[in-house]
């Protein structure tokens, strides 16, 4: 899967833009469709309310413990994603839903012994990106690299379930299957000192790539 890169855009979402909505499609797809077996994974029913508590790891990056909440609502063909982060870095926060089902534990998942879980060590646990929570959830290309910015931010985006699920399927071969997936948010102040062993990817700075919070998505209501 080719990950959308931050470098592809210099446009940062402001809080005002974050409340704007993508177009809501009308493909007629219902979340109540029959279960199908795909890639040895039973497809979940999409429709419902989901929530994830975003908790810090890599606590010693800058002496502050960030935390947040993600809420996802799927009704008929509309997906609404809301993420809240409370941090102390007024930086861009790349965020995405990953294929895996476990959050990293710094003490356990730091493979190179530098005391941090960098983005590569993180993806060994969380899996690759299922879809980014960026400027446009409907499309792989549109909105690429546009992420919320701020010390504390609220991100709200709406999308068409059929478009989002179709995009995910075509790029990753995966069903959406949100329950149990992992949400990650990245980004610390560019002045944060990191060791040379702190890996990055996709031309991101190590600070922009640094994962700071993680949460597992749980279904709250059908």
């Amino acid at each position, binding site marked *: 899967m080719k990950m959308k890169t931050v470098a592809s855009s210099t446009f940062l979402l402001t809080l005002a833009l974050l409340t704007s909505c993508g177009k809501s499609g009308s493909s007629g797809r219902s979340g109540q469709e029959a279960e199908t077996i795909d890639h040895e994974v039973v497809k979940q029913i999409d429709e419902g309310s989901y929530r994830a508590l975003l*908790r810090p790891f890599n606590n010693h990056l800058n*002496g502050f*413990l960030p935390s947040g909440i993600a809420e996802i609502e799927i009704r008929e063909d509309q997906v609404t994603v809301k993420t809240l982060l409370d941090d102390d870095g007024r930086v861009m926060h790349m965020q995405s839903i990953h294929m895996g089902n476990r959050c990293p534990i710094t003490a356990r998942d730091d493979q190179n012994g530098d005391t941090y879980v960098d983005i590569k060590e993180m993806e060994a646990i969380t899996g690759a990106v299922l879809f980014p929570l960026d400027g446009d959830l409907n499309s792989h290309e549109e909105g690429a690299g546009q992420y919320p910015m701020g010390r504390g931010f609220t991100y709200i985006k709406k999308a068409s379930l059929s478009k989002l699920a179709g995009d995910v399927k075509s790029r990753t071969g995966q069903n959406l299957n949100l329950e149990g997936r992992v949400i990650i948010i990245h980004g610390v102040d560019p002045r944060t000192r990191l060791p040379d062993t702190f890996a990055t990817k996709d031309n991101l700075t190590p600070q922009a790539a640094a994962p700071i919070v993680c949460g597992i998505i749980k279904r709250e209501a059908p």
Partner: protein
Amino acid sequence: MKLVILTLAIMTAASVQAETFRSRVHGQEEGFVKFSNGRVAFLDTRSVNLMPADYAEVDADDFDTSLLSFKILNDEKEYRNKNLSFTIDQEPEPIPRSEFEPTIVPSMAEAMNIWNRSNPYWKRISECSDRAHIWAHDEFKRTGTKSEKIFIFLTASYIDSVRFKWWFHVAPMYTVNDNGTIKKLVMDYRYTDRPLTIKEFTDELVFTKRHCKVTTRFSEYDVNPQTENCYLIFESMHYRLPAELHTTELKGLYKTSTSEAELRMVFNMAFMKKARE
């Protein structure tokens, strides 16, 4: 609120991004100020005169929490801490614990049930002391389980060395029978993803991984020997704030209950109403 006696602009560089919060001043250390909400702000303390009684609105730099400016807000109705400075010249005698005994949770499975019942609908801007108070009392109301609070206090030398941005933290702590072994498990539902042992909990905040010295005296922390990174105080579920630990030490008065009025007030400060059971 009667406003502003003093405004001091320490640095006004337009490019600096600031975080603003309001809190009473807890005390001043060399190089930083401690606020009652647990935050610290770094500054040259020789150049300012913030006192423990002061209630201040603070602008702190986003990155390193250096103090950019502050205003002192006066309000006669504000509760004012007494001066919390202490001097000790010998090893203090431990103060006797209250009669409070925590319930022994019968199994790890039941401990996980307690964890999973924790109210996840906290307000974004809320204090650890308030969240911990509600979590502990919610469980007490549900099942009668009595828990303790674990207070961790970070010393000036530690805060300065890692530029840590809080000087204390508190969470509920349960006593659990894990297949015949009695354990203390800390349940900090906002910042950790599972119940932690005391050492795991302190390691989340003390990056040197040094053990924290356990004490019964808040003053032992407050004089802040530079040789330690952190102190721990274990108290009953009824204690919410460091100031209450201080009162117990000074006056020998234990907080043995929590009123419904206090719980209502604390709940409203820390949690969203829709989640109230």
